[in-house]
């Protein structure tokens, strides 16, 4: 090696200085530029194009009009504001509709209905939230069991079993759900034993099927982060809490659960975002009442052929996602 290169020391000085400098800046640039290029050209630029399209107008046959006189906020207006009303009316209509939907017994607070797209948006948020809550309710106890109670040597196996379906094809698993929910299937025949289930009934093409599909596909994303945060908890804290007079529930609620919260938060975001933005699951499992915003966007670029409206819808959906991430980060969560 160059350990005996002393004689040329001063000659290569400048070169070495350069090398040191390269280590600091050129290194960063060399490592960054391929990805920066790729993400810039094939991710950000397309988003920018789509953003531009969302200000355009649709021609009669689905062509996109992007001339200066066509540009405007009309698609967003169409998305949020029912025809012939103002922003305020639309806002009130939306709030009123939400209250009517959520609170039983209250009907017709507002004469105007929000646009179908707004209803679709909130329905998707509803699906996402419900899928998140169900995944949490079902996944948390399981993660707790695997992370804390299960014998240590089985932990890895158990967690691999949770992940394994995630690696297998998404569409195939949705198809498997179809097989299960169709009339006269194994499951439906078994359920037909129950008095209130009709022979030959089917759960396919329903909101229930969509929700089941969402939970089925995304529940590993709840279990994994919760598991890893529970696994790190020092459970002598539970004993300490009980020693100080807490019963098991209180010890769990005040000591253990708060410590697993980062996992719960991460899991919730990981389940909510893809669930609310789903398009394939409602398309394959849902019926007439289970369309989601994702289907709406897809159909605008398919059979409905209104690209600008679809682009606007996509950006509204992204806005919802960003809001949920912001809420997550405000709650102390970190990306990654």
């Amino acid at each position, binding site marked *: *090696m*160059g*350990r*005996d*290169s*002393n004689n040329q*020391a001063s000659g290569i*000085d400048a070169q070495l200085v350069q090398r040191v400098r390269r280590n600091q800046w050129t290194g960063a640039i060399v490592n960054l530029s391929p990805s920066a290029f790729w993400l810039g050209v094939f991710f950000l630029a397309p988003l920018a194009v789509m953003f531009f399209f969302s200000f355009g107008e649709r021609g009669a046959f689905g062509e996109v009009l992007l001339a200066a006189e066509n540009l405007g906020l009309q698609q967003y207006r169409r998305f949020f504001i029912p025809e012939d009303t103002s922003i305020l009316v639309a806002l009130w209509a939306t709030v009123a509709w939400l209250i009517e939907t959520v609170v039983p017994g209250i009907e017709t607070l507002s004469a105007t209905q929000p646009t179908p797209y707004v209803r679709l948006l909130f329905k998707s948020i509803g699906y996402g939230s419900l899928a998140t809550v169900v995944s949490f309710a079902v996944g948390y106890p399981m993660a707790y069991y695997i992370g804390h109670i299960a014998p240590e040597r089985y932990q890895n196996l158990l967690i691999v079993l949770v992940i394994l379906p995630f690696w297998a094809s998404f569409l195939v698993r949705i198809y498997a759900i179809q097989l299960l929910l169709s009339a006269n299937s194994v499951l439906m025949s078994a359920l037909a034993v129950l008095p209130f289930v009709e022979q030959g009934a089917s759960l396919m093409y329903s909101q229930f099927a969509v929700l089941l599909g969402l939970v089925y596909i995304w529940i590993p994303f709840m279990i994994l982060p919760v598991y890893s945060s529970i696994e790190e908890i020092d459970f002598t804290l539970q004993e300490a809490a009980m020693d100080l007079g807490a019963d098991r529930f209180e010890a769990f609620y005040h000591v253990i659960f708060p410590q697993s919260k980062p996992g719960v938060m991460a899991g919730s975001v990981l389940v909510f975002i893809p669930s609310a933005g789903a398009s394939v699951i409602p398309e394959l499992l849902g019926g007439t009442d289970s369309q989601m915003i994702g289907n709406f966007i897809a159909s605008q670029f398919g059979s409905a052929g209104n690209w600008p409206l679809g682009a606007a819808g996509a950006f509204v959906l992204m806005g919802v996602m960003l809001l949920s991430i912001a809420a997550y980060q405000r709650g102390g969560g970190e990306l990654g």
Partner: protein
Amino acid sequence: MTDYDVRLEGVTKRFDDVVAVNDVDLRVESGKFLTLLGPSGCGKTTLLRCIDGFETPTEGAVYIKDEDVTNVPPFERNTSMVFQSYALFPHMTVGENVAFGLQMQGVDGSGETGRGGVGQAVKRLVRRGSNEEIESRVEEMLELVELPGTKDRQISELSGGQQQRIALARALITEPAVLLLDEPLGALDLKLRQNMQVELKNLQEELNTTFIYVTHDQEEALTMSDQIAVMNDGHVEQLGTATEIYEEPATEFVADFIGETNLVRGDYSDTADGAAIDRNGRTYVVPSNPEADATAGFAVRPEKIRIGDEAAGLDNSFRATIIDEIYKGNLGKFVVELDDGGRFTVDMQIRDQGSYLQTGETVQIGWAAENSVVLTE
């Protein structure tokens, strides 16, 4: 010209606004064991990294064997480091770890060394395994660190002390001009650490390689070093042998940091037969020090202070009251208070239980002037 293996000239290292190393000049003679001693954050590790090449000094120059290596990257310097965490490669066996340095040097049987163009570089990159020369050198090194036959073991199978030895073997196999050790014994338990101190010193003498050793543990420093550089706040406070550092601390920091000491600050004045320091109306006789300024201080080690009858008649002799005592087995440690409130710590050898003193007793303490050191700053 004396043979210096390492020479630092005005080395300064800044990280943004923080000055980690401040204008350090240091010369390490060939074959010596030098310790950089100081509290954590004093810049000793940064200085070590400047020598090894992981940091480039902001100002100043580093010479190894009289070659200016200030801007030479670490892999081209004739230095080797034993890391605090050992930094043994977990994906390699013990043998592969130890052989690594030789393989990087290109010892491949043909005796070829040095970087020879692209072809050689590529060869070096795809090179695998080892050969006879490397194998025998590895075995040799493993014997040197008293771990023969561990070549095929995994790093994770070794104990902390064994890992430490492997790290040493790995660093030494390339026969570096200077071996740098960054608190390598920190992770070991006390007994093992003491053994290793002795072994390290023996090894160093056997190999006659220059060692630069970083530690915050003064006992370690005193045990092993030919020379100690006491560092504080980025600069070297004092460079000297263990005795010099201990007996004649140059500064208040050194006196305070090395061992236990009694510090007294006062007004310095030269007298006919030496010098004196006045405090609270009491005069302490001290050796003369031309560098001392008007307000200086002196230090006296607890074991230099006599207690009881033998204290009478010494240059400094006072009555004091014992206000605290700690029994330490072979010696007793007493805190005494003079009537002006000044406190001293005194060590006393306990030869028989009868001579042990109790709190509250009034005793005579005293020490010879030459046993105290006048401190500059």
